[in-house]
């Protein structure tokens, strides 16, 4: 056995003969008409901020108009009422915005990426949980003035109309929040967590009635009430249009597995084709949510990046058995129908903006980078740092070398468990500069496990790459 090389290297002498050439043939056969590129949205952060600020100003303005602010100067009782109202409004707004985001509005997604949407969704969820907490405490305080604390508890758990529903809503928000704390969420299978998370819709629905009937701002102000109802209707429409329609459309006209080929003992290359591809727009670097329409898998989706530049003939994905349903997906039979949602992601070739690229890939994270490399212009001199635990995990290596060569670039690999490496920090600034002298001038695209992303990001920033020039999908599942 050849001694393992423990720093970034070209590994030229070792594996040139062993990677199957079939991949090359496949790549050629798929080199049919490339799919059109989805247009990037021109929305800016400030546009989103302005829209949210406008909605928030209107609704919070209603509260202020009704004397919400001045109530704080009239003693603790009116203050508690006012605090109950404003915290309730804030909680509802955060909930509404959060739901609007997971409706995956195309404009927003095409500007910021689905991962960013989920990050914002998380912030909004946290804000909502805190606001609901304040709302409950302030509401109890307010009603305690009537007949004492116990009476207030009885009132708010059902003796007042619609308050039982509101209490259930608050409890569900609590459950959804707790199960989404990272340490607790890890204990659940993704789908278990996801279905629990869906009860948040139930929470929003059951708490709506008490807002309209009990909430002082909406019960007595017809205009405010209709604005509030309209806002909810809008978000429901977004959800139907952005989330349910695409899912059902995809299941109605699914793609099918055109071919499936084993790359290593635990990785397969799967190509999906079908007539609907003709009208699909997608670009290398994007990803889809795959829903295999098989008895035991139809109810779950799994995100996979395009492993090759998409063409009208087929979408190629690399599927690694990570011990869950991906094992089943890696073994789908030819002809199996697969519904796809997407494409998502903004880490497309245009992030280079005319500059040279440095790719960092870890393991199966090579898939989108292979697709991106296929789309690069000749002479673009890309450099790929390809990290893997085992030599045989370096899938597509031959093709990547060829691609890099044809564009004047290089592929550097580093193989072995982290503990075995001579260079303890292969993504440290020194190692990066030693491997790629002009790295600081490049635009970086990263893909791989979370630890690799953060290590590489830190190293790149240390060598002077702007954080705006480091592109990657934040892990959100």
């Amino acid at each position, binding site marked *: 056995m050849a001694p393992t090389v423990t720093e970034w290297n070209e590994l030229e002498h070792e594996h040139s003969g062993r990677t199957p050439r079939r991949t090359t043939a496949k790549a050629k056969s798929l080199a049919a008409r490339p799919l059109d590129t989805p247009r990037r949205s021109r929305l800016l952060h400030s546009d989103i901020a302005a829209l949210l600020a406008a909605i928030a100003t209107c609704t919070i303005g209603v509260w202020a108009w*009704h004397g919400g602010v001045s*109530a704080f100067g009239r*003693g603790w*009782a*009116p203050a508690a*009422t006012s605090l*109950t109202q404003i915290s309730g409004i804030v909680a509802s707004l955060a909930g509404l915005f959060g739901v609007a985001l997971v409706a995956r509005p195309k404009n927003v997604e095409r500007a910021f990426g689905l991962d960013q949407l989920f990050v914002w969704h998380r912030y909004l969820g946290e804000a909502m949980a805190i606001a609901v907490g304040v709302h409950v405490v302030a509401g109890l305080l*307010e*009603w305690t*003035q*009537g*007949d004492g604390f116990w009476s207030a508890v*009885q*009132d708010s*758990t*059902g*003796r*007042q*109309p*619609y*308050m*039982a*529903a509101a*209490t*259930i809503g608050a*409890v*569900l928000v609590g*459950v959804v929040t707790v199960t989404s704390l990272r340490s607790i969420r890890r204990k659940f*299978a993704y*789908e*278990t967590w996801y*279905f*629990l998370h*869906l*009860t948040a819709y*139930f929470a929003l629905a*059951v708490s709506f009635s*008490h807002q*309209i*009937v*009990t*909430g*002082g701002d909406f*019960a*007595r102000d017809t205009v405010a009430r209709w604005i509030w109802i309209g806002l909810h209707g809008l978000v429901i429409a977004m959800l139907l249009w952005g989330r349910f329609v695409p899912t059902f459309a995809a299941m109605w006209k699914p793609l099918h597995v055109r071919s499936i080929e*084993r790359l290593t*003992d*635990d990785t*397969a290359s799967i190509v999906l084709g079908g007539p609907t591809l003709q009208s699909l727009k997608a670009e290398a670097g994007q990803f889809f949510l795959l829903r295999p329409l098989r008895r*035991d*898998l139809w*109810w*779950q989706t799994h995100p996979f990046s395009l492993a090759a530049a998409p063409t009208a003939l087929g979408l190629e994905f690399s599927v690694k*058995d990570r*011990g*869950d349903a991906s*094992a*089943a997906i*890696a*073994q789908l039979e030819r002809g199996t129908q697969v519904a796809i949602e997407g494409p998502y992601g903004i880490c497309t070739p245009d992030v280079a903006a005319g500059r040279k690229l440095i790719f960092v890939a870890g393991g199966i994270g090579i898939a989108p980078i292979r697709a991106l490399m296929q789309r690069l212009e000749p002479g673009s001199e890309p450099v790929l740092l390809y990290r893997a635990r085992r030599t045989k995990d370096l899938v597509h290596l031959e093709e990547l070398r060829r691609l890099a060569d044809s564009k004047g670039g290089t592929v550097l690999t580093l193989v072995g468990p982290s503990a075995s490496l001579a260079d303890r920090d292969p993504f440290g600034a020194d190692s990066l500069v030693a491997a790629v002298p002009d790295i600081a001038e490049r635009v970086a695209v990263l893909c791989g496990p979370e630890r690799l992303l953060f290590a590489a990001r830190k190293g790149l920033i240390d060598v002077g790459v702007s954080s705006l020039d480091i592109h990657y999908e934040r892990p959100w599942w």
Partner: protein
Amino acid sequence: MRSSDRPASLARRALPAVLLAGVSGAALTQLDRPSSGIALGRVKPKTSTTSNGTPSNTGTVSPSTVGNGDPTATSRVPNSSVPAPPACSGAAVLGPVVETRWGPVQVKAVLTANGKAACSADAPVTPSDRNRSLDINSQAVPLINDEVKVQGVNFDSITGATVTSDGYRESLQAVLDGKRG
């Protein structure tokens, strides 16, 4: 590849969520017991007693009858049928029993000297077949009693206890008309 790996079933993954939703739904139907009078317990007394300054946050009261916690909105002009305060004729008289949807209501009232108005009233008999009726009326009747002192026989109905309110009003009106139980 580990061919023995079988994806977990939908039932197993969805079970916690379905259980949670089911428990929530069951709790909802168990907990929901609105309109038991408390809704007005905090609002109506303000018409007769001093305002405690609590803004009404109870949806069951229509905006026209109860204000927004604004003291000027909660004060109410007493009904014109209420006489000048003096001259109550000591003895309480029983009104006729009025059958309502939920059971009998009977009023006992202290009248003014001329017998044209009630100084105060109470309802010793109210529907009692159901726990819910007992619960509601134990809270609603004192409220109505308070209202009668201020508004007379044409007092505002207690939301959530409208049947009792109507029976009470009918019995009281009968007393004023000279009928006795």
